[in-house]
Protein backbone atom coordinates (compact mmCIF):
# COMPACT_ATOMS: atom_id res chain seq x y z
CA UNK A 1 0.00 0.00 0.00
CA UNK A 2 2.85 2.35 0.91
CA UNK A 3 4.57 1.69 -2.40
CA UNK A 4 1.35 2.22 -4.33
CA UNK A 5 0.76 5.47 -2.51
CA UNK A 6 4.25 6.63 -3.49
CA UNK A 7 3.63 5.60 -7.09
CA UNK A 8 0.40 7.56 -7.16
CA UNK A 9 2.26 10.57 -5.75
CA UNK A 10 4.71 10.28 -8.65
CA UNK A 11 1.82 9.93 -11.09
CA UNK A 12 0.15 13.05 -9.70
CA UNK A 13 3.39 15.01 -10.00
CA UNK A 14 4.04 13.85 -13.57
CA UNK A 15 0.48 14.46 -14.74
CA UNK A 16 0.31 17.94 -13.24
CA UNK A 17 3.75 18.93 -14.49
CA UNK A 18 2.71 17.93 -18.00
CA UNK A 19 -0.87 19.13 -18.19
CA UNK A 20 -1.56 21.52 -15.35
CA UNK A 21 -3.89 20.75 -12.48
CA UNK A 22 -7.17 21.07 -14.32
CA UNK A 23 -6.28 18.66 -17.12
CA UNK A 24 -4.53 16.11 -14.91
CA UNK A 25 -7.35 13.55 -14.74
CA UNK A 26 -7.26 10.40 -12.62
CA UNK A 27 -6.71 8.48 -15.88
CA UNK A 28 -3.62 10.56 -16.60
CA UNK A 29 -2.37 10.04 -13.03
CA UNK A 30 -2.70 6.26 -12.86
CA UNK A 31 -0.98 5.63 -16.19
CA UNK A 32 2.53 6.82 -15.18
CA UNK A 33 1.89 5.50 -11.65
CA UNK A 34 1.26 2.00 -13.00
CA UNK A 35 -1.72 1.37 -10.71
CA UNK A 36 -5.33 0.51 -11.48
CA UNK A 37 -8.19 2.94 -11.15
CA UNK A 38 -9.56 0.76 -8.36
CA UNK A 39 -6.27 0.95 -6.43
CA UNK A 40 -6.23 4.71 -6.81
CA UNK A 41 -9.70 5.04 -5.28
CA UNK A 42 -8.83 2.60 -2.51
CA UNK A 43 -6.11 4.99 -1.38
CA UNK A 44 -7.54 8.41 -2.24
CA UNK A 45 -11.18 9.58 -2.46
CA UNK A 46 -10.30 11.67 -5.53
CA UNK A 47 -7.76 13.72 -7.45
CA UNK A 48 -7.87 16.66 -5.04
CA UNK A 49 -6.94 14.47 -2.08
CA UNK A 50 -4.08 12.87 -3.98
CA UNK A 51 -2.83 16.31 -4.98
CA UNK A 52 -2.99 17.65 -1.43
CA UNK A 53 -1.26 14.56 -0.09
CA UNK A 54 1.73 14.82 -2.42
CA UNK A 55 1.81 18.61 -2.08
CA UNK A 56 1.99 18.44 1.71
CA UNK A 57 4.59 15.70 1.67
CA UNK A 58 6.82 17.54 -0.82
CA UNK A 59 6.56 20.85 1.00
CA UNK A 60 7.35 19.16 4.32
CA UNK A 61 10.40 17.47 2.85
CA UNK A 62 11.62 20.72 1.31
CA UNK A 63 11.16 22.53 4.62
CA UNK A 64 13.08 19.89 6.57
CA UNK A 65 15.95 19.81 4.08
CA UNK A 66 16.24 23.59 3.86
CA UNK A 67 16.13 24.00 7.63
CA UNK A 68 18.83 21.36 8.07
CA UNK A 69 21.08 23.04 5.50
CA UNK A 70 20.62 26.43 7.14
CA UNK A 71 21.27 25.07 10.63
CA UNK A 72 24.58 23.61 9.51
CA UNK A 73 26.23 26.95 8.83
CA UNK A 74 26.67 30.58 9.98
CA UNK A 75 26.34 33.55 9.51
CA UNK A 76 22.92 34.47 8.16
CA UNK A 77 24.05 35.22 4.60
CA UNK A 78 25.64 31.79 4.32
CA UNK A 79 22.53 30.17 5.76
CA UNK A 80 20.47 31.79 3.02
CA UNK A 81 22.93 30.55 0.39
CA UNK A 82 22.90 27.02 1.79
CA UNK A 83 19.10 27.00 1.92
CA UNK A 84 18.83 28.13 -1.70
CA UNK A 85 21.40 25.59 -2.89
CA UNK A 86 19.53 22.79 -1.11
CA UNK A 87 16.17 23.79 -2.53
CA UNK A 88 17.63 23.95 -6.04
CA UNK A 89 19.20 20.54 -5.63
CA UNK A 90 15.87 19.03 -4.62
CA UNK A 91 14.09 20.76 -7.51
CA UNK A 92 16.68 19.52 -9.99
CA UNK A 93 16.44 15.96 -8.72
CA UNK A 94 12.64 15.83 -8.68
CA UNK A 95 11.40 18.50 -11.10
CA UNK A 96 7.82 17.22 -11.26
CA UNK A 97 7.45 17.40 -7.50
CA UNK A 98 8.97 20.88 -7.45
CA UNK A 99 6.49 22.07 -10.06
CA UNK A 100 3.65 20.65 -8.07
CA UNK A 101 4.49 23.02 -5.22
CA UNK A 102 3.48 25.99 -7.34
CA UNK A 103 0.46 24.45 -9.04
CA UNK A 104 -3.09 25.64 -8.64
CA UNK A 105 -4.60 23.99 -5.57
CA UNK A 106 -7.96 22.24 -5.55
CA UNK A 107 -9.12 24.38 -2.67
CA UNK A 108 -10.08 27.38 -4.81
CA UNK A 109 -8.84 30.96 -4.67
CA UNK A 110 -6.02 32.48 -6.67
CA UNK A 111 -3.09 30.14 -7.22
CA UNK A 112 -0.52 32.75 -6.28
CA UNK A 113 -2.26 33.36 -2.98
CA UNK A 114 -1.88 29.70 -2.17
CA UNK A 115 1.75 29.72 -3.21
CA UNK A 116 2.24 32.76 -1.02
CA UNK A 117 0.63 31.11 1.97
CA UNK A 118 2.53 27.88 1.64
CA UNK A 119 5.99 28.85 0.46
CA UNK A 120 6.37 32.35 1.80
CA UNK A 121 4.97 31.46 5.20
CA UNK A 122 7.58 28.69 5.49
CA UNK A 123 10.63 30.57 4.30
CA UNK A 124 10.00 34.29 4.81
CA UNK A 125 10.78 34.29 8.55
CA UNK A 126 14.33 33.09 7.87
CA UNK A 127 14.83 35.82 5.29
CA UNK A 128 13.29 38.46 7.51
CA UNK A 129 16.14 37.94 9.98
CA UNK A 130 18.32 39.75 7.44
CA UNK A 131 16.49 43.02 8.01
CA UNK A 132 18.76 43.74 10.95
CA UNK A 133 21.66 44.15 8.47
CA UNK A 134 19.83 46.57 6.16
CA UNK A 135 20.98 50.19 6.16
CA UNK A 136 17.42 51.54 6.21
CA UNK A 137 13.75 50.55 6.11
CA UNK A 138 12.86 47.83 3.63
CA UNK A 139 9.51 47.27 1.89
CA UNK A 140 7.05 45.22 3.94
CA UNK A 141 6.45 42.95 0.95
CA UNK A 142 10.16 42.34 0.29
CA UNK A 143 10.29 38.69 1.36
CA UNK A 144 7.25 37.76 -0.69
CA UNK A 145 8.67 39.51 -3.75
CA UNK A 146 12.11 37.92 -3.36
CA UNK A 147 10.81 34.41 -2.79
CA UNK A 148 8.31 34.71 -5.63
CA UNK A 149 10.99 36.05 -7.94
CA UNK A 150 13.27 33.17 -7.02
CA UNK A 151 10.50 30.60 -7.51
CA UNK A 152 9.66 32.11 -10.89
CA UNK A 153 13.22 31.69 -12.14
CA UNK A 154 13.26 28.06 -10.98
CA UNK A 155 9.86 27.23 -12.46
CA UNK A 156 10.82 28.73 -15.82
CA UNK A 157 13.81 26.33 -15.99
CA UNK A 158 11.74 23.35 -14.87
CA UNK A 159 8.94 24.03 -17.32
CA UNK A 160 11.48 24.25 -20.12
CA UNK A 161 12.97 20.89 -19.12
CA UNK A 162 16.21 22.59 -18.06
CA UNK A 163 16.47 21.23 -14.50
CA UNK A 164 20.20 20.66 -14.96
CA UNK A 165 20.71 24.43 -15.05
CA UNK A 166 19.42 24.87 -11.52
CA UNK A 167 22.49 23.99 -9.44
CA UNK A 168 24.68 26.70 -11.01
CA UNK A 169 21.94 29.23 -10.25
CA UNK A 170 22.52 28.94 -6.49
CA UNK A 171 25.14 31.70 -6.42
CA UNK A 172 23.29 34.28 -8.56
CA UNK A 173 19.98 33.59 -6.83
CA UNK A 174 21.57 33.96 -3.40
CA UNK A 175 23.09 37.26 -4.55
CA UNK A 176 19.68 38.37 -5.79
CA UNK A 177 18.05 37.53 -2.45
CA UNK A 178 20.80 38.98 -0.24
CA UNK A 179 21.27 42.31 -2.07
CA UNK A 180 18.38 44.25 -0.50
CA UNK A 181 19.58 43.31 2.99
CA UNK A 182 23.34 43.70 2.81
CA UNK A 183 23.98 45.67 -0.40
CA UNK A 184 25.34 44.50 -3.73
CA UNK A 185 29.02 44.13 -2.81
CA UNK A 186 28.44 42.13 0.37
CA UNK A 187 25.77 40.02 -1.31
CA UNK A 188 28.22 39.13 -4.06
CA UNK A 189 30.87 38.17 -1.53
CA UNK A 190 28.42 36.15 0.59
CA UNK A 191 26.94 34.33 -2.37
CA UNK A 192 30.35 33.41 -3.76
CA UNK A 193 30.92 31.18 -0.70
CA UNK A 194 28.29 28.68 -1.85
Amino acid at each position, binding site marked *: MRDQRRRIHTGVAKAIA*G*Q*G*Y*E*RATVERIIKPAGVSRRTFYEIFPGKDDAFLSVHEETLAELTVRVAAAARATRPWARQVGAAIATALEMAATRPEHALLL*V*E*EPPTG*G*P*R*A*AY*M*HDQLVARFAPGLRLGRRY*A*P*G*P*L*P*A*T*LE*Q*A*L*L*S*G*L*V*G*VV*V*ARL*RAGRAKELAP*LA*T*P*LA*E*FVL*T*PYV*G*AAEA*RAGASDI
Partner: protein
Amino acid sequence: MRDPEQQLDDFVSEFQAAFARLQICVETACAAEAAWPGRVAAAIRAAFSFAAAHPDDADLLTNRALAAGREGFERYDRMLEHFAEGLRAGRGERPHGRDLPPITDRAMVGGLASLIAQRLGDRATVVQLPALAPEAIQFVLTPYLGAESARELAAGRRS
Protein backbone atom coordinates in the same frame (compact mmCIF):
# COMPACT_ATOMS: atom_id res chain seq x y z
CA MET B 1 -19.21 22.63 -21.89
CA ARG B 2 -16.43 23.75 -24.25
CA ASP B 3 -13.88 21.19 -25.36
CA PRO B 4 -10.28 21.60 -24.09
CA GLU B 5 -8.94 22.78 -27.47
CA GLN B 6 -11.57 25.49 -27.70
CA GLN B 7 -10.86 26.50 -24.10
CA LEU B 8 -7.18 26.84 -24.93
CA ASP B 9 -7.90 28.93 -28.04
CA ASP B 10 -10.16 31.20 -26.02
CA PHE B 11 -7.56 31.53 -23.27
CA VAL B 12 -4.84 32.45 -25.78
CA SER B 13 -7.02 35.14 -27.42
CA GLU B 14 -8.05 36.60 -24.09
CA PHE B 15 -4.48 36.53 -22.79
CA GLN B 16 -3.12 38.32 -25.85
CA ALA B 17 -5.80 41.01 -25.66
CA ALA B 18 -5.20 41.59 -21.93
CA PHE B 19 -1.43 41.69 -22.42
CA ALA B 20 -1.84 44.25 -25.21
CA ARG B 21 -3.96 46.45 -22.92
CA LEU B 22 -1.34 46.22 -20.17
CA GLN B 23 1.48 47.03 -22.61
CA ILE B 24 -0.32 50.13 -23.88
CA CYS B 25 -0.91 51.31 -20.34
CA VAL B 26 2.72 50.75 -19.25
CA GLU B 27 4.30 52.17 -22.40
CA THR B 28 2.14 55.28 -22.28
CA ALA B 29 3.26 55.90 -18.69
CA CYS B 30 6.94 55.35 -19.56
CA ALA B 31 6.84 57.69 -22.53
CA ALA B 32 6.59 60.70 -20.25
CA GLU B 33 9.89 59.87 -18.49
CA ALA B 34 13.30 60.60 -19.95
CA ALA B 35 15.60 58.73 -17.55
CA TRP B 36 15.64 54.96 -16.98
CA PRO B 37 14.84 55.02 -13.21
CA GLY B 38 11.87 57.30 -13.85
CA ARG B 39 10.63 55.01 -16.61
CA VAL B 40 10.86 51.97 -14.33
CA ALA B 41 9.00 53.78 -11.56
CA ALA B 42 6.30 54.95 -14.01
CA ALA B 43 5.95 51.44 -15.44
CA ILE B 44 5.48 49.92 -11.99
CA ARG B 45 2.92 52.54 -10.94
CA ALA B 46 1.05 51.99 -14.21
CA ALA B 47 1.06 48.19 -13.83
CA PHE B 48 -0.24 48.31 -10.26
CA SER B 49 -2.95 50.83 -11.21
CA PHE B 50 -3.89 48.70 -14.23
CA ALA B 51 -4.33 45.66 -11.99
CA ALA B 52 -6.52 47.64 -9.59
CA ALA B 53 -8.66 49.02 -12.41
CA HIS B 54 -8.81 45.77 -14.42
CA PRO B 55 -8.51 42.89 -11.93
CA ASP B 56 -10.00 40.37 -14.36
CA ASP B 57 -7.30 41.15 -16.92
CA ALA B 58 -4.62 40.98 -14.23
CA ASP B 59 -6.00 37.67 -12.97
CA LEU B 60 -5.98 36.25 -16.47
CA LEU B 61 -2.37 37.34 -17.02
CA THR B 62 -1.16 35.81 -13.75
CA ASN B 63 -3.28 33.32 -11.80
CA ARG B 64 -5.30 31.91 -14.69
CA ALA B 65 -2.25 31.71 -16.94
CA LEU B 66 -0.35 29.78 -14.30
CA ALA B 67 -3.27 27.41 -13.85
CA ALA B 68 -3.49 26.72 -17.58
CA GLY B 69 -0.63 24.22 -17.77
CA ARG B 70 2.35 24.49 -20.09
CA GLU B 71 0.64 26.80 -22.62
CA GLY B 72 -0.38 29.25 -19.94
CA PHE B 73 3.00 29.25 -18.29
CA GLU B 74 4.80 29.87 -21.58
CA ARG B 75 2.70 32.97 -22.19
CA TYR B 76 3.13 34.16 -18.61
CA ASP B 77 6.88 33.65 -18.89
CA ARG B 78 7.08 35.56 -22.19
CA MET B 79 5.16 38.44 -20.62
CA LEU B 80 7.62 38.58 -17.71
CA GLU B 81 10.53 38.39 -20.12
CA HIS B 82 9.11 41.36 -22.04
CA PHE B 83 9.14 43.51 -18.92
CA ALA B 84 12.48 42.11 -17.73
CA GLU B 85 13.97 43.40 -20.98
CA GLY B 86 13.01 46.91 -19.90
CA LEU B 87 14.96 46.46 -16.66
CA ARG B 88 17.94 44.96 -18.47
CA ALA B 89 18.14 48.09 -20.59
CA GLY B 90 19.12 50.07 -17.51
CA ARG B 91 22.11 47.96 -16.51
CA GLY B 92 24.62 49.83 -18.60
CA GLU B 93 23.74 53.26 -17.27
CA ARG B 94 23.51 52.41 -13.57
CA PRO B 95 26.37 52.19 -11.06
CA HIS B 96 25.61 48.67 -9.81
CA GLY B 97 23.70 47.37 -12.83
CA ARG B 98 26.54 45.99 -14.86
CA ASP B 99 27.65 43.45 -12.25
CA LEU B 100 24.25 42.07 -11.31
CA PRO B 101 23.58 38.35 -11.84
CA PRO B 102 21.79 37.72 -15.16
CA ILE B 103 18.72 36.32 -13.41
CA THR B 104 18.09 39.57 -11.50
CA ASP B 105 15.82 41.30 -14.02
CA ARG B 106 13.58 38.27 -14.58
CA ALA B 107 13.40 37.51 -10.87
CA MET B 108 12.44 41.12 -10.08
CA VAL B 109 9.57 41.08 -12.57
CA GLY B 110 8.43 37.68 -11.28
CA GLY B 111 8.37 39.06 -7.76
CA LEU B 112 6.23 42.02 -8.85
CA ALA B 113 3.81 39.77 -10.74
CA SER B 114 3.35 37.71 -7.62
CA LEU B 115 2.75 40.76 -5.42
CA ILE B 116 -0.09 41.68 -7.76
CA ALA B 117 -1.44 38.17 -8.35
CA GLN B 118 -1.65 37.35 -4.69
CA ARG B 119 -3.95 40.31 -4.05
CA LEU B 120 -6.45 39.73 -6.85
CA GLY B 121 -8.80 37.40 -5.03
CA ASP B 122 -10.22 39.99 -2.71
CA ARG B 123 -11.76 43.37 -3.66
CA ALA B 124 -10.33 44.94 -0.48
CA THR B 125 -6.76 44.06 -1.44
CA VAL B 126 -7.27 44.88 -5.13
CA VAL B 127 -8.02 48.52 -4.37
CA GLN B 128 -4.86 48.73 -2.26
CA LEU B 129 -2.61 47.78 -5.18
CA PRO B 130 -1.69 51.35 -6.29
CA ALA B 131 -0.56 52.10 -2.71
CA LEU B 132 1.90 49.21 -2.95
CA ALA B 133 3.69 50.71 -5.94
CA PRO B 134 6.29 52.71 -3.94
CA GLU B 135 7.38 49.53 -2.13
CA ALA B 136 7.60 47.70 -5.42
CA ILE B 137 9.66 50.53 -6.96
CA GLN B 138 12.10 50.41 -4.05
CA PHE B 139 12.33 46.62 -4.34
CA VAL B 140 13.10 46.71 -8.06
CA LEU B 141 15.51 49.64 -8.13
CA THR B 142 17.63 48.69 -5.10
CA PRO B 143 19.99 46.28 -6.89
CA TYR B 144 20.55 48.74 -9.75
CA LEU B 145 20.83 52.03 -7.87
CA GLY B 146 21.69 51.07 -4.29
CA ALA B 147 19.36 51.23 -1.28
CA GLU B 148 19.39 54.98 -0.66
CA SER B 149 18.72 56.12 -4.23
CA ALA B 150 16.03 53.48 -4.63
CA ARG B 151 14.29 54.66 -1.46
CA GLU B 152 14.40 58.28 -2.58
CA LEU B 153 12.99 57.46 -5.99
CA ALA B 154 10.29 55.29 -4.53
CA ALA B 155 9.27 58.10 -2.20
CA GLY B 156 9.20 60.53 -5.13
CA ARG B 157 11.98 62.67 -3.65
CA ARG B 158 13.96 62.47 -6.90
CA SER B 159 13.39 61.37 -10.50
